[in-house]
C-alpha cells in the first residue's frame, strides 16, 4: 500500500500536534489545579478570619433568641461572598452544635436534646486557641499558629511544627474559634474548582481539536506545495519513461524541488539529444555498414586467374570503411593491371576517395599505359577531391605473353621482390607522387620494369604493415617485413606468403588495434 508524501506529512504533523497539545494541556491543567486549590484554601482561610466574628454576632443577635429567619438571611448573604464554602457550622465551647447550615435549612433545630459534637478531634479544634484545618479525609488536622509578623506557622495539636504539602492533600474544612466561646466550621467545596477545571479541560479539548484541524490544514497546504511540484515531476518522468523527451516541468520555488525540476528538465533535454544522437549513430552505423559493403563490393570478389601469376590479396581495414584499395583489371588478353592504393587516413572519406579512384581507373583503363593512366587519374582526383585527400598508388602491368611486369609508383610503399634463387627480399625503386596532390605529376611518375623469375614473388603493400605497432608501441618496420618475407621464401604459394606476412604482422601487433588499413598483394611468378 502506497502512502503519499501528503498523507505521511499529515499523519506526522497531526501526531506531533496531538502529542504536544496533550502534554502541554496535562501540565497546564495540573498546574492550574494546584494553583486554584491553593487559592481556594487562602480565600477560605481569609474568609474565616473575616466572617467568624460576624457570624457569632449574628448568632447571638438572632439565632440564639430564635430569630432563625433573620439569621438565615444573614448567613445566605455570607455564603454569597465565598462560593467555595459549602456549609457553616456553629458550635459552642462545650461542643453543642448550635447551627448547621446543611441541616437547618428551613428551620432551627428543635430537638429536646441539644446536638452534641461527639468527635473528640473536632471538639479539640473547637476548644483550641488557634484556627485549624483538616486535610484529606479529615483525619489529619493542622493548627495555624500566628507569628509576630502575622504569618501563619503550621503546628499539630501539641504545638509541634508540621509540614503540609498542599499539592497532595486538599483542605476539607477550617475551624475558627471565636472569643473562647464559640467556633465556626467552614466546609470547603471544590465544586467550583472542578467546574473550572472541567471548563478548562473542555476548552483545551476544543483547542486540541482546533490544533489538530489547523495542523491538518497546514500539513495539507504545506505538503500540497511540495507534492504538487513532485506530482508534476512524476508525471513528466513518466512521460520521459514513455519516450516523450519534450517533457518540461515548470517549478518556480527556490528550493530543492526547484533544483530537482531544473535538473530534470536538463536531463530530459540531454536524454532527448543523446537519443537523437544514438539514433543518428545507429543510422550512421547502418549507412557505414552499407558503405563498407559497397566498398567491399568495389574490391575484387575473387582473385582473377592471370596466366603466369599466382596472386593473393588481403585487405584489413582499420575502420568499417577503409582507405586502402586494390583491384585487378584485365585490360586485354595479355595485359592485366593490378594496383594497390592507399588514401590518406581511413574511414569513410578515405573510402570514398578510394572508390572514386577505383572508378576513375576503370574509366580510364582504355589507356593501356599505366603511367598515363595514373597521370589522368591524378588530374581528375585533384579536381574532385579535397586538398588534403590524396592517394598513393602502385600500379603494375603484367603482360602474360611476354611475361613482363612493369610498374609505376605514385608515392606508394616500395614494392618488395622475393628472389627464389637468392632467397633475398629486395625493395624495388619507388618514388613518384601521390595522386591528388598536384594537378600534373607527369614529370614525377616513372615506369619501371621488373625481371621476375619463376618462383619470384612481388609484395605490394600499404603502409599499414610497416606502420603497425606492437603493444609496446614498437614499429613493425620495413626491415622486419623484408625479414618476414625472406623467412617464408620456402612457401610455395602467393596465398601462403600473404598469410605468413599477415600472421607475422598480427603476431607482432599482439592484439593491438590496427591504426591504419593493412593491404597486401602477393604476386608469384609460377
Amino acid at each position, binding site marked *: 500500500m502506497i502512502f503519499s508524501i501528503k498523507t505521511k506529512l499529515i499523519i506526522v504533523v497531526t501526531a506531533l500536534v496531538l502529542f504536544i497539545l496533550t502534554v502541554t494541556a496535562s501540565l497546564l491543567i495540573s498546574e492550574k489545579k494546584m494553583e486554584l486549590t491553593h487559592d481556594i484554601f487562602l480565600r477560605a482561610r481569609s474568609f474565616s478570619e473575616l466572617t467568624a466574628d460576624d457570624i457569632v454576632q449574628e448568632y447571638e*443577635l*438572632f439565632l440564639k*433568641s*430564635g*430569630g*432563625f*429567619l*433573620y439569621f*438565615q*438571611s444573614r448567613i*445566605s*448573604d455570607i455564603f454569597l461572598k465565598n462560593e467555595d464554602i459549602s456549609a457553616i457550622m456553629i458550635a459552642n465551647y462545650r461542643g453543642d452544635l448550635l447551627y448547621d447550615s446543611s441541616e437547618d435549612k*428551613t*428551620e*432551627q433545630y*428543635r430537638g429536646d436534646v441539644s446536638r452534641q459534637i461527639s468527635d473528640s478531634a473536632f471538639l479539640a479544634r473547637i476548644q483550641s486557641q488557634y484556627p485549624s484545618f483538616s486535610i484529606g479525609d479529615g483525619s489529619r488536622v493542622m493548627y495555624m499558629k500566628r507569628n509576630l509578623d502575622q504569618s501563619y506557622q503550621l503546628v499539630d495539636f501539641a504545638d509541634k511544627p508540621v509540614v503540609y504539602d498542599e499539592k497532595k492533600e486538599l483542605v476539607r474544612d477550617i475551624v475558627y474559634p471565636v472569643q473562647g466561646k464559640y467556633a465556626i466550621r467552614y466546609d470547603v467545596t471544590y465544586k467550583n474548582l472542578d467546574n473550572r477545571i472541567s471548563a478548562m479541560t473542555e*476548552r483545551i479539548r*476544543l*483547542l486540541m*481539536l*482546533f490544533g489538530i*484541524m*489547523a495542523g*491538518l*490544514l497546514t500539513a495539507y497546504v504545506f505538503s500540497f506545495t511540495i507534492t504538487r511540484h513532485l506530482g508534476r515531476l512524476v508525471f513528466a518522468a513518466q512521460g520521459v519513461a514513455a519516450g516523450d523527451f519534450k517533457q518540461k516541468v515548470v517549478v518556480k520555488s527556490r528550493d530543492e524541488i526547484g533544483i530537482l525540476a531544473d535538473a530534470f528538465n536538463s536531463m530530459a533535454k540531454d536524454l532527448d539529444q543523446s537519443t537523437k544522437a544514438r539514433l543518428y549513430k545507429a543510422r550512421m552505423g547502418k549507412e557505414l555498414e552499407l558503405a563498407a559493403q559497397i566498398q567491399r563490393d568495389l574490391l575484387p570478389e575473387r582473385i582473377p586467374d592471370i596466366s603466369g601469376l599466382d596472386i593473393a590479396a588481403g585487405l584489413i581495414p582499420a575502420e568499417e570503411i577503409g582507405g586502402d584499395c586494390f583491384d585487378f583489371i584485365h585490360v586485354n588478353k595479355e595485359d592485366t593491371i593490378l594496383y594497390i592504393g592507399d588514401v590518406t587516413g581511413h574511414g569513410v572519406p578515405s573510402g570514398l576517395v578510394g572508390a572514386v579512384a577505383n572508378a576513375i581507373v576503370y574509366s580510364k583503363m582504355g589507356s593501356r599505359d599505366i603511367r598515363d593512366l595514373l597521370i589522368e587519374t591524378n588530374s581528375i582526383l585533384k579536381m574532385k577531391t579535397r586538398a588534403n585527400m590524396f592517394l598513393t598508388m602502385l600500379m603494375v602491368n603484367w603482360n602474360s605473353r611476354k611475361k613482363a611486369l612493369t610498374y609505376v609508383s605514385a608515392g606508394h610503399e616500395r614494392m618488395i621482390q622475393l628472389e627464389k634463387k637468392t632467397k633475398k627480399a629486395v625493395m624495388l625503386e619507388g618514388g613518384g607522387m601521390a595522386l591528388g596532390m598536384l594537378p600534373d605529376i607527369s614529370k614525377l611518375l616513372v615506369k619501371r620494369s621488373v625481371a621476375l623469375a619463376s618462383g619470384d614473388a612481388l609484395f605490394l603493400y600499404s603502409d599499414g604493415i610497416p606502420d603497425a605497432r606492437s603493444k609496446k608501441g614498437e614499429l613493425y618496420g620495413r626491415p622486419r617485413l623484408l625479414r618476414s618475407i625472406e623467412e617464408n621464401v620456402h612457401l610455395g604459394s602467393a596465398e601462403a606468403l600473404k598469410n605468413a606476412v599477415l600472421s607475422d604482422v598480427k603476431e607482432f601487433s599482439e592484439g593491438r588495434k590496427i591504426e591504419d588499413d593493412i593491404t597486401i598483394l602477393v604476386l608469384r611468378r609460377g
Partner: protein
Amino acid sequence: MHSKAHFFKIVGVFLFFVIFAILSIQIFAPTTYENLKNRFLSQFQPKISQEEELVIAFPDVIASFDPASYKASDRSRLVNMYETLVRMDSSLTLEPSLALSWGFSTDTVLEFHLRPGVSFHDGTLLTAEDVRSSIEYAKNAPNSEVSYLVSTISSIETPDSSTVRIITDFPDPLLLQKLTAIFIFPKKNIATISKTPVGTGAYIWKRYDKEKGDLELQRFSDYWGSSPKFRYVVLRGIPDREERFSAISTGGADILTAVPGYLASSLSAYDLDLKVIPSLEVNFLAFSFRPESIFSKKEAREAVLHAIDRTELLKFAGDSIEPANQFVSRGVFGYRADISNREYDLEKAKTLMRSIESFVRIQISVDLPMGFEALGRYIEDQLYLIGFDPDVQYLSVSDLTEKVMSGKSDFYLFGFRSELGDANDFFSAVAHSRGSDISRFGVFNGSFYQNSHVDELITESSRTLDTFKRSEKLQEIMKILVEDDMLGIPLFESKVMYAVRRGVHFEPRVDGYVLARDIF
C-alpha cells in the same frame, strides 16, 4: 464512481471547514459563539403550548381583590399580579423588584430608583407617581389592612419620574421589609383597583369565577422579568379538604396548598410529591377584652388556659403542626425562647371559673374558620367542662374576620403569618390597641386588647435601629402578652404541606406565597 468519490471529497472538505470555523469562533470569540448558538437553538425550542395551564388549589377563596388586603388568602392570589418596590426571596432576603436600587440618605429618608421600562397590565409605564399613590392608598384607604405597615411614613417625594423618596417620622428599622407588602398599581386606577387588579406582575387578571372559586390569570406578555412557563394560571379556592385532595389526585390541580396531614403519606400513590416547609403562621385562640366579655376578667382567661391541653391538639393535625407557646413561630425575630405557658390543669381551671361564677354556665360565642371542626369540638368540650356554654360557629375567613373585628366574638381562632419575619408585625397589627387612628396600629386587634405599656414598647421597637435593643423590647412584649396579660392561647405553628404533581417544579417559600412565575 469517480464523480461520487469527488462529491464526497467536496462534502468532506466543506464539513471540515465548517467545523473548523465553528471551533475558531467558539475558542476565540466565545461570547459571539454563545449568542449565535442560542439564536440558532431558539428556532428549535418547542413553543409553549397555548393550552398550557397551571392550576393551584388553595384551602380558601379570595375575599378581596384590594391590594391593601393583608389576609393571607387574598395576598396568596394578589401576589401573582402585583409587585412591590422591593421583594423577598425564598429565604426572606431583600432583593430589587420595581426598584433597582435604594439607600438611606438619612435615618429617616429612604430613596428608591425605579426600574425603567416597566409596564402595568394596561400598558402604561410605571412612574414614581404611581408608587407614591400606591403607598398613600395603603396608608389611607378606609379598608386598608396594611396601613399600620406604612404608618411611619410621613411624606413621599417624587423628584423625577423614576425616583421616590420616602420620609418617615422616625427611623424605621423594618421599613424595607414592610414595603415588601405594599403593592404598586397605576395612580389612575385608584378608584377601581379594589375590584379590578392592575399590577406589574407576571400574570394579568383574566376573570374570576365566583361560583367555582377560580381566579384565572394569563401570562403578561410585557412583563419586565423572565417570562414564566405557564401561559394560564388558575388559582382555585376549595375550602373542603376532601374536595381539594380529590382535585389534585384526579389531575384537576397541579399544586395543592395546605395538604391535610393525614393525607400526606398517600400522595405518592397519585404521582404527587410532598413538599413541606415551616410556615411563619401561628394559630391561637384569642380572648375578647371588651368590657362586656367574660374574658375581660383575667381569671376567666387563665381558667381557659389551664383547660386546653396542647398535646391533645397534635392529634388533630398529625405531623404538620408543632405546639406553639407564643404568638410568633420559631425563627421570627422577637421569638422568646424562655416563655412559660400555663400547664394543663382542669381542676385549677374549674377553680378559677368558680371564683367568677359558680352556678350558671357562662354563654360565650366561639368562632373558628371552616375546616377546624375537630379542634372546635375539643375546645367546646373543654370549655363546657369548666363551666362555659360555648356556642361554636364555623365561618368563612371573611365572615370570621368581620365578626371578630366588629367585636362580636368572645373567643375565636386566629392565625397570623409573620411574613416579614419580625414579631413587630404581629404586635403592631394584633396587640397594639386600636385607638382612634386604626390606620396605624391594631388593624387586626379583634380582641380589643389594650395595654399602654405594650403600646409604648411596640412604638419604641418600631423606632429602634439597635437590633439588640429591639430584640429585648420585642421579647418583653411577648412575655407580657403570653404570661402576664394572656392575650390568647397560642395553639400551634403549622408546617405548610404542598402536594405537587410530578413534573412540576415548585419550591415552597417560607413566607407561604405560591408564585406562579417561579413554577416550571
